[in-house]
């Protein structure tokens, strides 16, 4: 017990006296978390420029273009009658797409035939394509429905029946959660959990690397016994755990309101869920840190793993599309289960019972990484009595 308390206090001291680690921990708390969501803060992209190519130049074509311009997704850019010119503008990135209304458009509609308009939109950037498509489609569908209902009414149907006859099986799409289709709401909650993981791993890796350097250079090996590793790891682990378990609270009560992100979960349930998340990261960090020969190895190693980790966390890209072997391997990262469970609890209002699978996986990871770090620390730092002899 005394070893445990001393290891914990020593670790607090080591963290506080290391400016690099303090910087990373502060970055994980506020710098990254306030900076990263910035690009997404408007949530949706509006008023993308679309070039109208009106070859019909009729009353109806102008009406359609007005409808297009009126949507919030797109606005009309300077018009042209030349398709090649419109295409050139999209290739050069001056417009997001172009909308061709062919000659004879109005005549076809008046005759009761089907008229086709063509939308060419930039699919290099998916969000742009999605917005342009939604905007133009909405405008055409509205105009189309109006025309059709007029036809049915002319044929003697009542308005309600006209609507029903037009579309006998309508589909009503309702979003569950994130009703505004906000991009920040989609990305930021998951990324916050990843920032927590990566900064904690970097910080632990920096101190671990420093320790490894110190042990290699230590003139006289300090004495120690094998039995004290468990309290040592528990004590050190508690130091990091006690700091990082506060981070989610800060995210929930500061970053979420700052970017107006919606929440549906109970704070208590979220925090209960996150206990094994933080703990498993701490022990993963201990195990990893024994790999870093120098303190400067930890940042590069962990900066680069953040990209694959984001796409294996299942929020930006569905796990169903990931090969099975990789999906299983990804369970070794605390973020895979941690992010999935956190999002369902906090964004979708799931109960702890509904995320129990993820919770158990995280506890299993805690156990696994505790054992792993116990083995690794013994091999690389065989003198637990003096955890860091060369540090002030």
């Amino acid at each position, binding site marked *: 017990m005394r070893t445990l308390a001393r290891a914990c206090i020593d670790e607090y001291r080591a963290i506080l006296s290391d400016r690099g680690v303090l910087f990373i921990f502060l970055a994980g708390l506020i710098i990254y978390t306030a900076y990263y969501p910035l690009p997404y803060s*408007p949530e949706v992209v509006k008023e993308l420029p679309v070039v109208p190519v009106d070859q019909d130049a009729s009353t109806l074509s102008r009406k359609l273009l007005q409808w297009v311009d009126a949507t919030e997704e797109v606005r009309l850019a300077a018009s042209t009658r030349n398709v090649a010119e419109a295409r050139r503008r999209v290739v050069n990135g001056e417009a997001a797409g172009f909308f061709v209304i062919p000659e004879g458009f109005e005549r076809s509609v008046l005759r009761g035939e089907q008229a086709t308009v063509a*939308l060419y939109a*930039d699919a290099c950037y998916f969000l742009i394509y999605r917005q342009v498509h939604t905007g133009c489609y909405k405008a055409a569908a509205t105009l189309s429905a109006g025309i059709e209902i007029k036809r049915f009414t002319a044929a003697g149907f009542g308005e309600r029946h006209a609507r029903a006859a037009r579309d006998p099986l309508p589909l009503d799409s309702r979003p569950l*959660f994130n009703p505004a289709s906000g991009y920040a709401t989609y990305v930021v909650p998951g990324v916050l959990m990843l920032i927590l993981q990566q900064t904690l791993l970097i910080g632990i890796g920096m101190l671990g690397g420093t320790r490894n350097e110190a042990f290699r250079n230590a003139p006289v090996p300090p004495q120690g016994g094998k039995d004290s590793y468990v309290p040592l790891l528990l004590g050190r682990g508690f130091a990091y755990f006690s700091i990082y378990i506060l981070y989610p609270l800060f995210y929930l009560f500061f970053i979420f309101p700052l970017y107006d992100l919606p929440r549906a979960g109970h704070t208590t349930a979220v925090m209960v869920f996150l206990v094994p998340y933080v703990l498993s990261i701490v022990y993963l960090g201990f195990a990893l840190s024994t790999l870093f020969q120098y303190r*400067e190895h930890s940042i590069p190693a962990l900066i680069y793993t953040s990209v694959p980790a984001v796409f294996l966390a299942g929020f930006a890209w569905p796990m169903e599309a990931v*090969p099975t072997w990789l999906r299983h391997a990804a369970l070794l990262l605390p973020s895979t289960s941690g992010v999935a469970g956190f999002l369902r609890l906090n964004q979708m209002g799931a109960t702890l019972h509904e995320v129990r699978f993820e919770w158990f996986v995280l506890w299993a990871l805690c156990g696994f990484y505790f054992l792993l770090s116990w083995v690794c620390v013994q091999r690389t730092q065989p003198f637990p009595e003096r955890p860091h002899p060369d540090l002030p």
Partner: protein
Amino acid sequence: MAARGANEGRLRCLYRVTRRELHFMSHSPFCTLFIVVLPLVSFAILCAIFYVETPRDLPIVVCDRDGSTLSRQLTRMADASASMAVTATARDMEEAAGYVRRGEAYAVLYIPPRLERDAKRGDAPPVVAYFNNQWLLTSGILNRALRETVGTLSAGLDLRARMMRGEDPALAWERYEPIQVDAHPMFNPNLNYRFFLLPSLLPTLVQAFVIMMTVRAVGGELKHGTAGVWLADSGNRPWLALLGKCIPYTVAYLILTNFMFALLVRFMNVPLHGSVRVLFLASVLFVLAYQVIGVAFVALSANLRLANSLAGFYAGPAFAFAGITYPTIGMPLFAKAVGWALPLAHYLHIVLQQALRGAPWQASAPYLAALAAFVLAPPILFLPRMGRLMRDDRYWGRL
């Protein structure tokens, strides 16, 4: 020691500095890890993640309150769609919502009671699709797929009703939906996520490797107190010392970017419609730009630890600011400015322009110029200070 090489030719000195670095690299497992192993492993992982071009068979749950021939037909059609698979049926909405909260389904298709009867009477009961919009990407795919499925069924019913009213079948078909939008996704006709995400994510990894290795290579000399030997080898010319040190990494990472494009085009079938030369030039500038910025961070901080943190902070969140998944046009001004200050953003625009769009080189010229500015401008500012750091041993051995 310091005088050694002062009178020697520049090329000889350059050769000596480079040879020293190559010797160091070949004895450092960390270098092998960061130049060969980790890039290949991370490329492989990302390629595996995005190997499917668009997600298929996303699980949805059907809540069928009707239980009629029509509702079963709708369920079958939804299951048959390539994008989704009906993995569960629920008795009521509460049960269905449970599937969504447990993460077992991305959407609920709610079929209201008496659907078939009301549809026959022309009473238009709405079929409701509840999407888990927290997963924005999957909800977009499912929205499109469900709209198509229900639309096809609805059009069939509409057509049947019209023919029963005695309209000519050909005419009846035409009258459905008087204005049709024919959508053409330009440059990526199948809306393939692989084509769009892989060519932007792999360079994001490369920039992190380049800047981190540069900081370590240059900052390490200060930390380990070997800057004097290094400078002496260059004949006391800081610019030459830096150049000789960076060349091996420039070459290594250029090989890596070329390998990256070979991987993308040959094995991942990413189209390459534009100019290979423009891409190559952009890659050279891209690697050099990150090396220059890495050196600038070391010069600025005179401290490996801080330079490392700065570089991590610079390169870590870069993808969010690059304007690929969330376009630059929708960002607030400050985020746009951050994007402009990242060579990655300019490089990725060139990559997408040349690979997918087949844009003329003139369209890429502004971005190339921006990359060139990153390579040329900072050295003027940091070279004098870097020289001072290399000479003055007070800056050495700092953690």
